[in-house]
């Protein structure tokens, strides 16, 4: 398997809900007018608490300075796993499940904090730039490491620096953060960039005006209903995560939907904001899912983490994770 270290230098920022209006100009430009910026990596995720922005340095220039925006100090690099095709098993698990054992667990063992972003197309594992030597050292045994430089993919080798790296002790990872599962169901989808202008106003409405007048029937939703929407435009590919109600506002055939029309339920991780330093959170969730061979998407935001699992598996997932946390 190949591990690509992408060339984007990423910033992770949080915009408070109250401050969103001062950023809309920049965000609209990043999301819908990609040709006007040199940004290649943009992701916006709305949670009930805030908007989480992941953007490369070129795109970061489009955002204003404001007290409503808090930025994580570190610069992040995105890693991407490319499996070499090879023998195709019929039921390939998708999402973090596939890489849980090979990437996420080893990084957690080496106390490297990761920030996950699953999209329709692939999964990005964000690591701090300063952790890169350690990451390469950790993963070089399992992967062919390739680094993208000026659009060209070149092989890189582990620098052989082992000094000071402690041998990790393999401990069981109990789930330590509280979990919750909202009631609404989500759809992970995409659309043709050519059709983006035709649905731009709709997307803007979804992104920025969700806090406005509630849709009819929304009030009748139970308190478990969560506001969650993610849009990303990465290297020309668009990925959307939204709940089922929102998808129905789109015209037919605009959204890419899989043949089976699968829907996903969310597991929300964290009672307190998780911060960026704690490691092993993704591993705690993904390892039991991998063991059960349940596909999952995983989206980290500034404050909390979110895992998406197939709706039919939600009960077993919750069950498995609860067991794990109470076993502690």
């Amino acid at each position, binding site marked *: 398997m190949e591990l690509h270290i992408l060339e984007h230098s990423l910033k992770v920022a949080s915009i408070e809900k109250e401050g969103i209006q001062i950023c809309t100009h920049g965000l609209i430009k990043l999301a819908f007018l990609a040709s006007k910026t040199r940004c290649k990596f943009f992701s916006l995720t709305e949670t009930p608490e805030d908007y989480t922005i992941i953007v490369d340095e070129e795109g970061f220039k489009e955002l204003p300075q404001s007290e409503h925006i808090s930025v994580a100090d570190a610069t992040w690099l995105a890693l991407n796993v490319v499996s070499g095709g090879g*023998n195709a098993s019929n039921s390939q698990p998708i999402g973090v499940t596939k890489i849980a054992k090979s990437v996420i667990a080893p990084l957690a063992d080496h106390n490297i904090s990761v920030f996950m972003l699953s999209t329709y*197309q692939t999964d990005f594992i964000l690591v701090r730039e300063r952790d890169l030597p350690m990451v390469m050292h950790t993963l070089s045994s399992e992967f062919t490491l390739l680094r993208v430089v000026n659009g060209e993919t070149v092989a890189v080798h582990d620098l052989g620096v082992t000094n000071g790296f402690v041998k990790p002790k393999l401990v069981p990872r109990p789930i330590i953060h509280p979990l919750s599962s909202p009631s609404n169901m989500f759809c992970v989808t*995409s659309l043709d960039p050519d059709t983006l*202008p*035709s649905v731009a106003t709709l997307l803007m409405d979804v992104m920025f005006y969700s806090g406005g007048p509630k849709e009819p029937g929304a009030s009748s939703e139970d308190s478990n209903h969560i506001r969650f929407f993610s849009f990303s435009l990465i290297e020309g590919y668009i990925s959307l995560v939204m709940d089922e109600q929102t998808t129905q506002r789109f015209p037919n055939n605009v959204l*890419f*939907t899989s043949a089976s029309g699968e*829907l996903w339920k969310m597991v929300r991780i964290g009672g307190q904001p998780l911060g960026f330093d704690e490691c092993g959170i993704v591993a705690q969730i993904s390892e039991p899912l991998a063991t059960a061979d349940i596909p999952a998407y995983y989206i980290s935001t500034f404050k909390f983490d979110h895992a998406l699992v197939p709706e039919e598996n939600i009960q077993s997932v919750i069950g498995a994770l609860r067991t794990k946390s109470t076993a502690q």
Partner: protein
Amino acid sequence: MSGSKPDILWSPHHPDRYVICDSELGLYRIGPVGSAETKAGTLPLSEETAATLLAINSDTPYMKCVAWYPKHEPECLLAVGQANGRVVLTSLGQSHNSACKELVGKEFVPKHARQCNTLAWNPVDSNLLAAGLDKHRADFSVLIWDISSKFSPEASVTAEKIRLSSVDLDSSSVVTKPLYELGQNDACLSLCWLLRDPKLLLAGMHRNLAIFDLRNTSQKTFVNTKAIQGVTVDPHFHDRVASFFEGQVAIWDLRKFEKPVLTLTEQPKPLTKVAWCPTRTGLLATLTRDSNIIRLYDMQHTPTPIGDETEPTIIERSVQPCESQIGSFAWHPSSQNRMVVVSAANRVMTDFTVFERISLAWSSTTSLMWACGRHLYDCVEDGAEGVESAIEKDIATRMRQRAQSRYGHDTVQVWRNHLLAGGNDPQLKSLWFDLFYILLMIKLTDLELKLPGNKQSVVYSGIKNIVKSSSGTTESRKCWSGSDRQTDVPRFLSEERFLALRLCGWIGRGPDIDVEIFLRSLEQEREWERAAAVALFNLDIRRAIQILNKGATAEKGDLNLNVVAMALSGYTDEKSSLWREMCSSLRLQLKNPYLCVMFAFLTSEPGAYDGVLNESSVAVRDRVAFACMFLSDAQLPRYIDKLTNEMKDAGNLEGILLTGLTKDGVDLMESYVDRTGDVQTASFCMLKGSPGDVLKDPRVQCWIENYRNLLDAWRFWHKRAEFDIHRGKLDASSKPLAQVFVSCNFCGKSISYSCSAMPHQGRGFSQYGVSGSPTKSKVTSCPGCRKPLPRCALCLMNMGTPVSNCPGTGKSDEKMDLTRENKLAQFNNWFTWCHNCRHGGHAGHMLSWFRWDTQEKLQMCRYFCNPLVQCF
């Protein structure tokens, strides 16, 4: 819908129909402008053609790519790839016949929705439709659908799960299970089926070109490259593939797939379409974004496969089919070099034919060909009269005929060459007689004519030089013989003058200076006037009269000759006689120049023979001979020089008599060649010359080379070989060096090389017993490494050992054969090899082996190859 770029597809089976697809599909029919069906709706495409819109299909939104079903039935079935990855079968302008109805509306849905980039029908197994999709996680990006498959049972299982998409779908027409899934974890940007095997699919993947084999889907051949867009196979050359990346086109040879065999010059703007012309080999059309030109690359003369060293020849040119920017184009499938172009905006269409470059070629004979596209025109000069004769007169035609009649190759009777040339050109006749006499003289100098000094070169150097060297001239006064007049005419005699007369052909060999033989030969050829004149110049008036009488009485003779004879007989040397007065005035009215000069001679004062010498109708040889007899040492060189210069200026070959085969002669020949272009005569003539002088002249070499090229151009290979042999005999330096060598098995050096410093043809092998006397041959080991030479498979003696020394086959009659025929014995000593098994031996042994038992002929090599049998 914005941003959808138009594309054109020609119907694979209807040469007048095509589809334009942008946001919808439009079927058009193309026809001549102003035809009976001209309606308000027709759109002019060119001055001659217009298109009619037949049908529109806007059922399928978000089209990304379209492909036309390649088979006749159903006729107008299109596969449309959509932005969400679904492939829909649709139809245009069809009365819904049953075959089509079943298929139209069928949808092929990938597991995960993403853009469908490309579609390709299998050209042979037309049920197979390949779709290339964007990357989606670990999913496959190349899906091959079977359009005849019924909806799969799995589809019904999953049908209940289809909530988002099933609203507008009849689930029975949805197929979700592809026949093949290829290219996992990758994106596919372009696809085409390979024409050399319908099971092979070429795909432009994310960063590589891959060839998938449907017989073994786990294997793929691939090459890493950026040029992965628009893969397309050359329909005329199934191993040649074009693909592009941004502004650059790469041409691949599937037999040598590691890297592109060539890349075309990069364009500043990204390419949008690349297409091979289906009607013309090696023509590739390319279109870049925002451009109003189509760039064409002609690779017809590019060698395939292209070697590493050679710079490929590609002719690049641009055509501008219309003023506006071009959205797309499509070659017409059968009409030559024709395409329809659609503009980027407003769907303006243009019918356009790329005009083929014209190439023009003269044939080596008299015709002119020009070629344009598939047409070949043979041009002949238009029917004016005399064309035939003009062609006949053309020097190229004549040289060709002469080459066929072996002109120049008669080395024994050299003068006969003028007959081979047709025998009607007095200059050639003179030339070949000159050469004949020159060669005859040379032979005589060797044999009997003991001439002092280096006479041989004098003979070559022409009369001009001969008379200059003249010394010891004696003046003799000779009386008229056969006449009662006692007048003396002064004549000049010297050895050089005799030589000159011999070269003129007046007197024969030996010390004898009698012209009688010459006269008889002239009589035989019925040249009565000339014979009479020669007799007269030799002061034998009676013989002259006799000749004229003979001429008058001969068959078809001219009776007027008798009248002339009568006039001659009245000759008187009285200065003031009526005869003389009348003769000098009336002679000018005589038509025959020889008769004219006869009277001029008779009426001239001694030493003042301008009337004879300047009569240009008289052959040069006769005038020169005359001058040699009657002009003094002071007058003669002057006259000869003057005549020589005249001849040189005129390029008259008769002048060769004067110049000989010297530098002067080459000058003369040069002006002859300038005048006529007859390099053939020039080559043959100069080859006869003394090798040292003229053959080295670059002009002569140039004529010879040109003549050889000419023979090559006429494809007269045998004539060319004959000429080369002929040339080699006369000019040893022109012989090619040995081109075949025998090399040693051990050190690889030529075995003939080290023994003779200069490897010369036929020389090197003689020491190895391959030729020459058996007793001399001693060398049986390689001179380079001292290893023994191969052995004869029969007598087991080393190469180099003569065959007669060895016991051979032990057959007595064989031995007798060898002794009987010496020549055969020489050949028997040669070594020969089987090209298959490399066995061999003395040619004689090999011959007798084969003679031994014809039944086992074919067994021979197998027998030798047996390791138990001694071999080398």
